[in-house]
């Protein structure tokens, strides 16, 4: 997939911007706080109608305005030229694809893959399990409608069961009614995560080997909260946990408490890996995600690099550059222009929310 044109209106600090992208390398240059990341955020919004900065709708709309709009013209491997329009309001989002309104997330998710490389990614290694689960769920759901459906069913049934526990008047019969739906959805999530992490782990190992010369093997390990993976035994587990759940007034165990970890040389990266190794790990994770999207859907994701090139030393930058798919479109940001050895970029200058193409850079 290639983003050929991106038009923004009232998106964060960008009043109006139109980027016409030629070729496969775009670079957004400007000082800090000018709006470079906002433009990448908009492009990343295409994939799952979510911001990679985890932001509320309200923050995406320019202050004093009530609707932000973005239109993308895409060259898509399967669909040909496609126009996507997204309107974001404080309480709602509206999506149009080739002049037709799309109302179901399941019909849209994963069609237009993008992968964001951001400095916040380090939190995936160091941060809380919630961030890792969110990343994993979005990655798997984008490529598997069945996984998305199981996730939606699980969240809903879990919320209902927790509401029962919270009300303090929970009866076994009612808990059982929701557990009947919860258990098969949980089984599907566990199976999906296990298979997904196995594939993503293998892709990560390959990507990490390209980023680091010393052949330290890196991998991913799944830490399911429930070791059992079939619906029958999950049902038994939920039933056995009722007394404790009632004391704590929430469902204590289940895939909503799952986690996964990164390993380098078979040790936990969170505790033992150096700063540089952790950075390489998240880059490798994003490369694995891009490869996974392409493998599963046949669509090349657009790579969005938020100030990543500037953070790497020249040797690592070269290796990162050689590890990415040369056919993929790369949109990068930075405070200064990248080295000439990384190819010819189409350069846009970003200043105070305004974007201008820099000719003959």
């Amino acid at each position, binding site marked *: 997939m290639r983003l050929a044109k991106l038009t923004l209106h009232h998106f964060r600090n960008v009043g109006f911007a139109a980027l016409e992208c030629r070729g496969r390398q775009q670079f957004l240059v400007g000082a800090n706080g000018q709006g470079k990341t906002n433009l990448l955020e908009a492009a990343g919004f295409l994939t799952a109608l979510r911001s990679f900065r985890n932001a509320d709708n309200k923050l995406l709309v320019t202050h004093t305005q009530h609707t932000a709009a973005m239109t993308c013209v895409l060259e898509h491997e399967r669909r040909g030229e496609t126009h996507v329009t997204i309107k974001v309001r404080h309480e709602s989002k509206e999506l149009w694809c080739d002049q037709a309104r799309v109302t179901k997330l399941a019909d849209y998710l994963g069609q237009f893959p993008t992968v964001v490389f951001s400095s916040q990614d380090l939190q995936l290694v160091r941060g809380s399990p919630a961030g890792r689960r969110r990343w994993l769920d979005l990655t798997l759901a984008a490529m598997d409608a069945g996984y998305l459906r199981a996730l939606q069913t699980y969240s809903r049934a879990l919320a209902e069961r927790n509401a029962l526990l919270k009300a303090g008047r929970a009866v076994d019969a009612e808990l059982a009614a929701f557990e009947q*739906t919860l258990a098969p959805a949980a089984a599907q999530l566990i199976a999906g995560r296990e298979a997904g992490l196995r594939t993503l782990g293998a892709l990560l190992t390959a990507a990490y080997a390209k980023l680091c010369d010393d052949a330290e093997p890196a991998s991913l390990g799944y830490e399911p909260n429930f070791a059992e993976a079939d619906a029958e035994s999950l049902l038994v587990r939920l039933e056995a946990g009722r007394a404790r759940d009632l004391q704590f007034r929430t469902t204590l165990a289940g895939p909503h408490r799952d986690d996964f970890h990164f390993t380098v040389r078979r040790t936990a990266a969170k505790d033992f890996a150096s700063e540089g190794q952790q950075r390489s790990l998240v880059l490798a994770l994003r490369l694995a995600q891009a490869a996974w999207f392409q493998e599963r859907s046949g669509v090349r994701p657009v790579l969005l690099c938020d100030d990543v090139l500037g953070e790497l030393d020249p040797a690592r930058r070269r290796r990162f550059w050689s590890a990415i798919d040369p056919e993929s479109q790369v949109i990068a940001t930075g405070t200064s222009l990248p080295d000439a050895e990384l190819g010819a970029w189409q350069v846009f200058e970003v200043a105070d929310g305004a974007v201008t193409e820099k000719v003959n850079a």
Partner: protein
Amino acid sequence: MTPAFEKLQKHLKQLPGLGYRSSERIALHLLVEKPAQLPALVTALEEAARAVRRCTRCGNLAETELCAICADERRDRSVVCVVEHVPDLVAIERSGAYRGSYHVLHGKLSPIHGVGPDELNLAALRARMESGEVGELILALSNDVEGEATCHYLTEHLPASAGSAVKVTRIGFGLPSGGGVLYADSVTLKSALEGRRSYS
């Protein structure tokens, strides 16, 4: 605007589907544009409030002890179709495909919205099952988490499950008739495939 007008508008706004603008428009329509319609509307409201109640057997709208469907001798009382709300019953009636009786739950289990078994019209259903007149229970509840949970609850906690001969079925989920496979969403297609049956 006057205080009485604002009071009326406030009450209209509490009705489902009406916002500030539409309630204002209706209030103006009744009081200023077509005041002649007002007495008839007031009478109709009063009459309906007095006369309409729940059928003691199935929970449908009725003006006597039993609703028109329960009172109809030609309807098959051994088959009971369980629905969430009265409009669901009306929709099935309109299809003309069903000649059995109904049971309206007036909701589905949803702890988030504070709906438990006590809020549903279950006692009457239990009484009907205990009377032994029911041979088949058709669950026509919505295809979501709450509908699913309600189905589980019903099958586990009604006398039907206690080894009696009552057959419990659930309506199928699949393609809309006249619709092609192409235009169905992926979730519907999946349940249509799962619910396929032999063709001969």
